[in-house]
């Protein structure tokens, strides 16, 4: 039996507001427990929620970016369930009338093709607190600092057909919310969380199979692994004559498996109803207009422009526009160095390599875009060779800021005086008559030997193009 995998994702993006969605308490991460949980967040009697304008503006911005319908009127509803980290006994969310309706997102697949994934809806809601199950004398500790943090829950259509497609979608969404500056995207801190609805069906069947909802996934790698595991599990269940049950399953990254979390009889019964404490939210024409005006250049548009404006390959343009920060860095380098391809090669090559190795983000790069651009200018004008540039780059990485000063101090200026290069070459040819014979006998690989000798004598400073040219002339002539 050939199985088709069907995946839909629910992404919870914490909105980057200063204060909570319904209270004036701070949302800053990492405070001491309960120092940022006010009376509203604690659900004390008599408090009332007041909606944060910025959370609404961010949701609108998101909706515009995914070409979604923005509801002119949306309604908050209570989702009722009991859990100690939810003091009110309900979560304020949106149900029938979410703020963002149907939209779409284009994703890029490994094989170079693209695909459009439907977005069902996105709605505003408040986050719950945190339960700490470490041992407090057999009790559970509750930290409500996170309670009331604004979330945008983004629900996709079941349009993805593999773990790889799900990861591509999640990554694209992650990039998008960061471009929009509505979410910091920090998966470790839980600012960007992914739940995956996974089901399988015989290839060719139109009806969807029963799905399992995978939770507790805090990296793209785990998203892929969790889905791969779950698909195998469901195939085993069905081929073993069993039935997949609709349930929530927790992903355990240490064991790389998913485990049932809630039993079937506890099936969700949230008894949603409109929250009487909140009036309908109206999105005015002005709000839409200012949302449109605040949209930055989005990843797809930037990628297209990078191809057209800088002559970059689609692959390079995609890599460089994956994050807004990287794209900005690249553009600053180009502004300094003018040679876009050279800049792309260095940003994606040596710089990214060094950043990866050091575990740093582009925003924490020890080499500024100005410094790198300054160095690239010297490659472009032949002051240094690409090979010597690696030494300059190392110095910049170690804390130097001015490429020219490094080149000067280390005496790295390229030798482009053909007279000087010829003199070195003649010396080397005179010292290696047997190698010349080998070369002339047809062993043209010996050219590399001579180039190496010249570079050794000149400490790599001879212009490689000129060395090759003069050597060939001498050897062939």
């Amino acid at each position, binding site marked *: 039996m050939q199985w088709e995998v069907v995946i839909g994702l629910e992404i919870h993006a914490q909105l980057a507001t200063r204060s909570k969605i319904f209270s004036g308490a701070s949302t800053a991460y990492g405070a001491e*427990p*309960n120092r940022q949980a*006010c009376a509203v967040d604690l659900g004390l009697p008599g408090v009332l929620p*007041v909606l944060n304008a910025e959370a609404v503006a961010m949701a609108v911005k998101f909706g515009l970016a995914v070409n979604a319908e923005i509801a002119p009127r949306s309604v908050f509803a209570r989702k009722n369930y009991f859990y100690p980290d939810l003091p009110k006994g309900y979560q304020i969310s949106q149900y029938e*009338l979410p703020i963002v309706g149907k939209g779409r997102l284009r994703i890029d697949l490994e094989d170079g093709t693209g695909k459009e994934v439907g977005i069902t809806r996105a709605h505003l809601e408040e986050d719950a607190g945190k339960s700490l199950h470490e041992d407090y*004398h057999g009790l*559970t*500790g509750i930290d409500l600092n996170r309670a009331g943090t604004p979330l945008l829950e983004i629900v996709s259509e079941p349009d993805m057909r593999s773990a790889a497609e799900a990861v591509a979608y999640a990554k694209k969404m992650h990039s998008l919310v960061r471009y929009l500056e509505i979410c910091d995207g920090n998966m470790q801190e839980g600012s960007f969380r992914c739940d995956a609805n996974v089901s399988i069906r015989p290839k060719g069947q139109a009806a969807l199979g029963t799905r399992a909802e995978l939770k507790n996934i805090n990296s793209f790698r785990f998203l892929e692994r969790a889905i791969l595991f779950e698909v195998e599990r469901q195939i085993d269940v069905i081929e073993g004559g069993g039935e997949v049950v609709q349930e929530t399953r927790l992903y355990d990254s240490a064991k790389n498996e998913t485990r049932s979390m809630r039993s079937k009889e506890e099936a969700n019964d949230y008894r949603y109803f*409109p929250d009487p404490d909140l009036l*309908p939210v109206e999105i005015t024409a002005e709000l839409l207009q200012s949302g449109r005006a605040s949209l930055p250049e989005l990843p797809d548009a930037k990628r297209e422009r990078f191809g057209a404006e800088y002559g970059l390959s689609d692959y390079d343009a995609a890599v460089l526009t994956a994050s807004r920060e990287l794209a900005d860095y690249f553009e600053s380098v180009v502004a300094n160095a003018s040679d876009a391809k050279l800049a792309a090669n260095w940003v994606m090559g040596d710089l990214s390599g060094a950043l990866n190795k050091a575990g740093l983000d582009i925003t924490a790069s020890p080499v500024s875009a100005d410094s790198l651009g300054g160095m690239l200018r010297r490659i472009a004008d032949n002051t240094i060779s690409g090979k010597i540039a690696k030494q300059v780059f190392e110095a910049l990485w170690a804390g130097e800021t001015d490429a020219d000063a490094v080149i000067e101090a280390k005496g790295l200026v390229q030798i482009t005086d053909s007279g000087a290069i010829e003199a070195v070459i003649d010396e080397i040819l005179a010292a290696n008559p047997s190698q010349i014979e080998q070369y002339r006998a047809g062993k043209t690989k010996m050219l590399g030997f001579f180039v190496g000798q010249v570079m050794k004598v000149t400490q790599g400073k001879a212009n490689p193009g000129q060395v090759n040219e003069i050597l060939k002339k001498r050897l062939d002539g």
Partner: protein
Amino acid sequence: MSLTRADVQKIAHLARVAIREEDIPLYADNLSNILALVEQMEAVNTTGVAPLAHPLDAVQRLRPDAVGEVDQREQFQAIAPRTEDGLYLVPKVIE
């Protein structure tokens, strides 16, 4: 529509309300009466009438995104049954 004993028990469980066995018929009766009223209202033709999200004919006012709350943890925790390390302690919840 008439609620069964099991319906009442389920509703009570979802609301985490403890009810006495002997009161169940009374609750079933009362709740069923409410549903009967709903059924009566459902007979009204509401084509073209927008659902009422709130009885007030007004829209939500928005608050500027500014931190206005100060830390009052000590005061809040003074009335909590048990706290430790700044955490509220509650009976263990097993998933």
